[in-house]
């Protein structure tokens, strides 16, 4: 069964893909990229560096992922964020706040808000490759070098009117089939977010973006760097990891 990553890993995998080919359609290119996400489970240790103006804040967290449906993130630092957990079950996001010892379900307007102060929104965590394929029309626009890598430029246009990112422009590496860059636009044509990949590593049979920068263009002078410090694929994760009860566990 083909499974792809979700939550944070998803974000990274949106930008990852395998091996080369020629005379490809936009769909082929996207599929090739998505093929690279095949795994059952993953465990990752990550660091998030948020820069707003002159200030920089670093946050560490770990994440467990199972397929596209389930993921759990737990923050380790800084002190005020320590113990905050985000559980994703399909499209439902729940956050546990240790200070209040309460769980909040993220919904509606909150989905578009900054996730833990970063340039990523909660909504950004829930987008999956299947969804992208189903709900956007894709077309191969151009070919261009980005950061020294030859890339395909794929444009995705939402089939639905009310979508935060109505159009997306994605630069996919012609050689490794991983995303190098993505521009996310509002329906008005305004650039909302810019995602760039600055480091890619190979793990056994796959390439994997390990340093990704998201810039929320609506916030001024703001960017969030996401660094994968360690990642293990297809490991054993206890079944009760992705439950609300586990959220409440200290």
């Amino acid at each position, binding site marked *: 069964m083909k499974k792809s990553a979700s939550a944070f890993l998803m974000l990274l995998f949106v930008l990852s893909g395998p091996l080369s080919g020629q005379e490809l359609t936009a769909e082929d290119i996207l599929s090739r990229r998505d093929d690279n996400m095949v795994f059952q489970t993953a465990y990752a240790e990550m660091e998030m560096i948020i820069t*707003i103006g002159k200030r920089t804040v670093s946050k560490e967290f770990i994440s467990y992922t199972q397929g596209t449906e389930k993921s759990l993130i737990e923050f380790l630092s800084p002190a005020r964020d320590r113990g905050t957990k985000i559980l994703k079950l399909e499209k439902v996001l729940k956050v546990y706040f240790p200070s209040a010892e309460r769980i*909040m379900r993220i919904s509606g307007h909150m989905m578009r*808000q900054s996730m*833990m*102060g970063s340039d990523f929104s909660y909504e950004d965590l829930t987008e999956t490759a299947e969804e992208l394929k189903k709900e956007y029309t894709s077309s191969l626009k151009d070919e261009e070098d980005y950061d020294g890598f030859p890339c395909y430029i794929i444009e995705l246009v939402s089939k639905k009117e009310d979508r935060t990112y109505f159009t997306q422009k994605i630069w996919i590496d012609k050689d490794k089939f991983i995303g190098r860059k993505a521009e996310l636009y509002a329906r008005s044509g305004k650039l909302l977010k810019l995602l760039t990949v600055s480091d890619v590593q190979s793990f056994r049979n796959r390439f994997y973006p390990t340093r990704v920068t998201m810039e929320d263009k609506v916030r001024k002078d703001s960017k969030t760097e996401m660094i994968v410090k360690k990642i293990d694929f297809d490991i054993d994760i206890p079944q009760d990891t992705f439950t609300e009860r586990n959220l409440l566990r200290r």
Partner: protein
Amino acid sequence: MKGIVTLAWRNIGRNRRRTLLTTIAIAIAVMFVVFVQGYMKGILDNFVQNLIRNDTGHIKLAAKEFLRLERTLPKEHLIFDSVSIEEKILQMPEIQSKTERIRFHLVLSHRDRNEPCLGIGINPSGEKDFLGLDKHIIEGSYLRDSSSEMILGYRLANKLGVSPGDELLAVTTDINYSTYALTFKVAGLIRTGLATLDKHFFYIPLDKAQVLLDCKGAVHEILILLKNPDEAPKVAASIQEMLRDEGRGETIAAVPWQQHFMVRFYMPYANSFIFVLMLIILFIAALVILNTMLMAVLERTHEIGIIKSLGMRDRTISMMIFLESLFIGLIGSAVGGFLGSALTLYTQKFGLDLSQFMDKFETPVPIVSSMIHPQFSMRILALSVIFALATALLSSLYPSIKASRMMPVEALRSSLK
């Protein structure tokens, strides 16, 4: 001369319907002007009072960056160690009272409902002179100092489905970009009549807001009320000097309420708007008076023809008509002035509640309450009476001259047609 006065007085009694009509026209015009002007003044006054109590105080102290970016409420621009500044300010003799606030965006959550709203950390007892929310509680009770309680607008409470006693989760990003949450118990619901406040605002004790934002001892704003509001610019200048001596003049500003953009830009605009509106009302009133007076004279062509052929002088005839207008004008503006003043004074005392209409308006800044107390002004009363009288007299000028110049034969003939 005395004969003319008597004749004119009798004349206005001769055609009751005509006199009544003209008198009513003038009375309504005067009443309308007096009341509308009073109502407009009431709105402006209400606006300034709301602005001072909700937003500016007579003087507001805040970080310069916070003031510059006030629309987005940048939580990190704070006045740190606010107590030391407040202690110095309270020594000034002009100060009546002070309070401090933290204002920030956050999300309130109850069960599965989330609402983005505006949280205000307040000093519950200190706010009695300012927001005065204790007077707006419609259910439950007012906030207790340092409690883990919250009061919120009744429409916000409806949206979240909470009532007093329920627990709410407040989630925000603190000044160091950490996400933090605390639970609060709903103490009471407030209804201010300002749609924006009732729909989006909630209030928690200041110290809890400081915990949420991770900013112990710091506030966004210090608000000051003075014994005399007119002294605000002067006192603000001396506070600014004190801040400079403390070495904090670069980052913190003391702003008098008169400098608020709403006051600086909109008040003159509002005043000229009212002035133009008054001119239009008065112009229409003048047309009505002119028309009635004109009709009153032209109707009497036959009568004037007769008294002329009986030998009355032109000047005497103009004087007679002028006096008639004067009497009618006096009676009309007296009645109108009385009614207008009575209406204004009555509504000034008991207020005019337009909440049915006001609930529909949503403004980015709380502006005007639904309950308006019009402001009676002797000056406006005198002005509108004089204006109405002058209009009545001026508008009688043309018909009276026309009447006096009529050839008796023509006047008599025209009425026989």
